[in-house]
């Protein structure tokens, strides 16, 4: 999924970016609250990882403004502060989860996965679509008895389509969810990934239909 990291500490941001990119997510990074607000207004992020201590407006303020303008994006707060007050405040302001620095990498990954599942309205890690089983915690995909090996972009496409199986996902939305700003994207990168994914799922898995001029749809059956 597409994740925005709002963190002013460059080394930490670099670390979290490599970590989450390796897990197949598309990551964008900004270092200030104002930048976060302007980027989040235009890009369809599934998750914002928001540091509380930012140089301009703090993370709480960013969260409050996001919620005030009706943005329901999932927000995971990161804080270096100790107090329980901060956690309560963050959750009250509409944060979906909260993590204190220094955090365990496994915990960050697990929470990101959990938040990703909740986005689809279904928090269970396993999802069945026709003969296909997707485990969103482990990233394992099976069709029948067959384990499908996916590259991380293909996984991102499948995850995005599976979350809205049976619905048309517009090309632009899919593009925005799968690629970050900085990803080197060729004009037909999305098509290439969709095509590869489609061939890997065939013949017994669910079909990915192209709705010409609109987008893509993963068949429910």
């Amino acid at each position: 999924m597409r994740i925005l990291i709002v963190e002013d500490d460059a080394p930490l941001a670099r670390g979290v970016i490599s970590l989450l990119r390796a897990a197949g997510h598309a990551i964008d990074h900004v270092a200030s609250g104002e930048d976060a607000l302007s980027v989040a207004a235009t890009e369809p992020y599934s998750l914002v990882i928001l540091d509380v201590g930012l140089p301009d407006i703090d993370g709480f303020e960013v969260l409050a403004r996001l919620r005030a303008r009706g943005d329901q994006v999932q927000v995971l707060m990161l804080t270096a502060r100790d107090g329980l007050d901060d956690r309560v405040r963050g959750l009250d302001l509409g944060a979906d989860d909260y993590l204190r620095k220094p955090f365990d990498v496994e915990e960050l990954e697990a929470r990101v996965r959990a938040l990703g599942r909740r986005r689809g309205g279904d928090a269970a890690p396993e999802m069945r679509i026709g003969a296909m089983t997707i485990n969103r915690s482990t990233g394992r995909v099976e069709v029948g008895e067959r384990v499908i090996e996916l590259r991380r972009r293909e996984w991102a496409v499948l995850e995005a389509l599976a979350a809205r199986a049976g619905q048309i996902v517009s090309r632009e939305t899919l593009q925005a969810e799968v690629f970050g700003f900085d990803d080197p994207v060729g004009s037909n990168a999305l098509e290439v990934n969709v095509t590869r994914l489609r061939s890997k799922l065939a013949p017994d898995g669910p079909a990915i239909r192209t709705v010409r001029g609109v987008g893509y749809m993963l068949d429910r059956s």
Partner: protein
Amino acid sequence: MTAAEGTPKRALSLRRRLGIAMLGPLVIAALALGVIGWALISDVVRRTNDRVLGGALGAIAETVQVERGEVTLDLPPAAFGMLENSERDNVYYRIAVGDELLTGYADLPAPDLASLSTEEPRFRYAEYRGQRIRIGEVRRDLPRVQAPVVVQVAETLDNRNALRQRLMTALLLGEVVLVGFALALIRPALGWSLRPLAELRAAIEARDTRAAPDLSPLRTGPLPAELQPLSRSFDRLLARLDDATSAMRRFTADASHQMRTPLSVLKVQVALARRGSDEALREIDEATDRLERLLTQLLTLARADEAGTLPPLEQVDLVEVSRRAISRRIRQAIEADVELLLDSDEKAQFSVLGHRSLVYEMLSNLVDNAIRYNRPGGKVTVALRKDASGTQLIVSDDGPGIPAAQRAQAMARFARLQGENGPPGSGLGLAIVQSSAERLGANLKLEDAGPGLRVIVTFGQGG
């Protein structure tokens, strides 16, 4: 109270002090009162008895008459009755015409006739038959009698002495009771007077808890004027302690907060290294450097903040300190591709009164900042100048500088300015510089070096 071995020596108790302070003056006052009382009592006893004596004298003198050329008198018994008393004083009398005895005791000491008045009886002490007596005497001039008639009545002094003694005894007894009472009152009076002090002590003791010391001003009832300065000084002490502890608490919180981010970086990068990332080791290296620097800076700042432990002022040679600070930073400068140079007049002396280690830490942090926030190929200049305001230590760089609006903020602890995309800093460098400058009594000023930042530390003439 005998102080046992090892117990600390105690000052005299307040009760003793008050007792000692009061006893002397009280005894002196009692003695003075005794002397005055004795004089007054003697006077009153003398006057009263003299009046009785005078009464008897008058009654006898009344009866002296001339009958057919002969002086006669009729001694009234009532006159002597007046003089009877419990002490059985002896009463003597003598009535004479001129020198010739009419009746009475002939050897009663005769008066000096010339000075004796006919109006007022005269009283005097005399010696008679081995005893002190008081004589009342009056003169009467009778018609057709050549010589003046002299009437004398005398009594011994036993009654007078006894009366005076009784009165004196009563007076002295009263005084002793008064002094004793005053001394006995010291303890309860002191207890009552010191009750506000006990309340104050209770209020102070209530603060002495291990849990979370309450450093707000004491809340006591209205205090006597004598205790108000004490309570005020205690409140001031509490307030200073409060400032110090909250500064310490803030600092600890800030410091731990500051360590969390590099620790997170370490954790993330260690995980990535385990998964085979090539980048991770370099990042781990950087993060540990950063933690190390943060730790060093925190310690330096704590030292610069430490109150009251500075050694005496010494002459600090700024040229020597600058050279040392530059040689400490030269490797860092080479790695960052920054030229580092000292600009000072070879012949001039740049010596200021201060503390060498503080000047060194301050300069070292300034140079560190200047290298860190510079551009590759940039320059850092440490310059020494002298002008009317004093000796100046100037560090300038070619970095992005700090906008005027953010300069005050830049000196705050853990301040990291917006839009900083350069190397990670702790935000402590300028705080250390400022704290050191403050302790050295030097003036710190940030200026635009167009481009870059110029930091000017001015040591006053005196320091």
